[in-house]
């Protein structure tokens, strides 16, 4: 990895929504022997529902 990339990877504050796109839609998903994962984020249905849905749902947003 080049020096430039190392520098920009370190010490920058990324936007939370960009991060959640990746952490809730991307990443390796493990099923089977794990206790829990947020692969099914529908289990979340409260204040954050709109926020979570906005980065995970395939359905059109209701707004």
């Amino acid at each position, binding site marked *: 990895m080049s020096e*430039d990339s190392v520098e920009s990877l*370190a010490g920058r504050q990324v936007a939370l929504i960009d991060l959640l796109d990746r*952490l809730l839609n991307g990443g390796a998903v493990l099923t089977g022997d794990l206790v829990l994962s947020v692969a099914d984020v529908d289990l979340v249905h409260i204040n954050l529902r709109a926020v979570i849905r*906005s980065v995970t749902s395939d359905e059109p947003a209701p707004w």
Partner: protein
Amino acid sequence: MTEEAVPAAGQEMSYVYAVCRAGTPVETALAGQPGLEGAPLRTVRAGELAALVSSVPSVSYGTEGVKAQMEDLDRLEVLARTHHAVVEAAYEHAAVLPMRLVTVYLDDGRVGEMLGARAPEFSALLARLEGHVELGVKIYADPREAVAVTGGAPETDTAASPGRAYLQRRRSQQRNHRETYRAAGSVAAEVPARVDGIARAHVAHRPQQGDLAQAAGENILNDAYLVQDAQADAFRAALAGLADDVPGVRVEITGPWAPYSFATPPAAAEGDTR
């Protein structure tokens, strides 16, 4: 195992951030890097693979605990940023396969079993991602910005009645709105050709909406591209100036990211072009 394991209250569980090859200098990256709840990081090895792990209390990371964390934006942000910080610190030193947020096992023994069971798949993914970064491309349509740039609505007939002037303004706004979105669509359509030969793979995320999408305008494209590390600058250069002459259309490039969007096994990934 066919049913979900239930941790005993007060127990510690193993939170997995990422998987990498055993023997890579990731241990160096872990020194001084705190995991969730400030706990120290460790690696769990199995064969040629190693998982980056820290202990988390079952009360906060069991089903109910995670629900509570996800309901609280501040706690979710801490969780996401801590997970990300660990992945980034490791990724500076070696190729890693980031796990999805909140991948939790009962103990290190189960993490090791998982590594063993998924070894062929993880090795193939790591080989594919080695030496690559992810870059995000977002395109926004902002009709109000278009008006500001082009100097406002076309001249309305000042002699016209107020009603007629209103209708003229309204039509002009609608036309501006349509044209801005059409222009944004054209800009979006140009991206694949511009990065052809540079990008190795492509994943489309859903356009960003909702409370957390605070950027001006509407996000109409939210894509991730897998690019060789040495090609990251070329990728940015290829998209430079893409919307410079297009009022109300904005292109944002994010990253480099660890390849989160490409860590999902190919069968489950969408829009992978090659």
